[in-house]
């Protein structure tokens, strides 16, 4: 039972994907792989590596959103459900070449799951046994958080399932914490 507005996003996603520059997938996968292994060597604690990946993703996300809005010409989203569709169908398609599925909305429509069938970041990767705590593609959670923060939505994105951990799909849970209203910067607040 897809919403009436949902169909066009698939098409928009594909149109935008056709227009953007592409990079060799293996180069991308290997580069990300060496980033993760280097972080693991540097930080040693896997929880810390997850945090760093998320921070890196955040920095990417705050910049990525400009490119996204410029290229895709998607207008304002009416509500959070539409935001979710745009992220999954247009955003992921444009930058990773895959579409994600939006599932499992909670009752208040403030939380949803992004389900990824395959992910170019994790091609050919096999996690060693002791790496159970590592969310390999955690950078994506940061990207989602950073991008949505720039459009006034404060969200929390966390991995709940990952194919590298043996699950059949990867799943990111996105929770809307608050809609940010424009705040006067501290320097201008007095007077």
């Amino acid at each position, binding site marked *: 039972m897809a919403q009436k507005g949902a169909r066009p996003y698939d098409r928009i996603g594909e149109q935008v994907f056709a227009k953007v520059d592409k990079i060799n997938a*293996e180069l991308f*996968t*290997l580069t990300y*792989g*060496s980033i*993760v*292994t280097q972080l693991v060597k540097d930080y040693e604690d896997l929880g810390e590596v997850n945090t760093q990946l998320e921070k890196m993703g955040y920095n990417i996300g705050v910049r990525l959103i400009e490119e996204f809005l410029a290229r895709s010409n998607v207008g304002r989203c009416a509500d959070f459900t539409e935001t979710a569709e745009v992220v999954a169908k247009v955003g992921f398609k444009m930058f990773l070449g895959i579409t994600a599925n939006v599932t499992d909305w909670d009752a208040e429509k403030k939380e949803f799951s992004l389900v990824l069938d395959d992910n170019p970041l994790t091609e*050919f*990767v*096999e*996690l*060693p046994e002791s*790496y159970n705590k590592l969310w390999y593609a955690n950078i994506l959670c940061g990207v989602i958080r950073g991008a949505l923060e720039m459009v006034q939505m404060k969200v929390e994105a966390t991995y709940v399932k990952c194919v590298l951990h043996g699950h059949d799909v990867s799943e990111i849970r996105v929770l809307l914490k608050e809609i940010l209203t424009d705040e006067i910067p501290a320097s201008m607040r007095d007077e």
Partner: protein
Amino acid sequence: MSVPYTFTIVGKNDNPLYEAEFASGVKAKEQAHHLSQFVIHSSIDLVEEAVWKSTAMNLKGVDRFGKSYISSFVTAGHIKFMLLHEKKEEDAIKGFFQDVYELYVKIAINPFYQLNTPITSVAFDSRVKKLGAKYF
């Protein structure tokens, strides 16, 4: 009839990275296993010489030991696949080496795998054994 094939992957420092045995009949005895290992390692010198004489990766037969033959396939990174076998089945061995090479490349591309270290992946192990059953 038990015709055990012993397949070994040897790294750049003559260190063993992976071993497997395929027997189309009875399982090989412990002693024979050590002997096959010894035989394979003794032929590594010949492989090193043969590598520079040919541009192909598949060196086919490089050595003999009694009734057994030793075939070898050396990857671009000088990782040597060695096979100890009784029959001269060049085509089956060529196909086998090619398929194992593809599996090896996938392992090598894994960012968490350090090159020249033992291959511990269970998935790799089971796939190589399936290939062994398929070709031999």
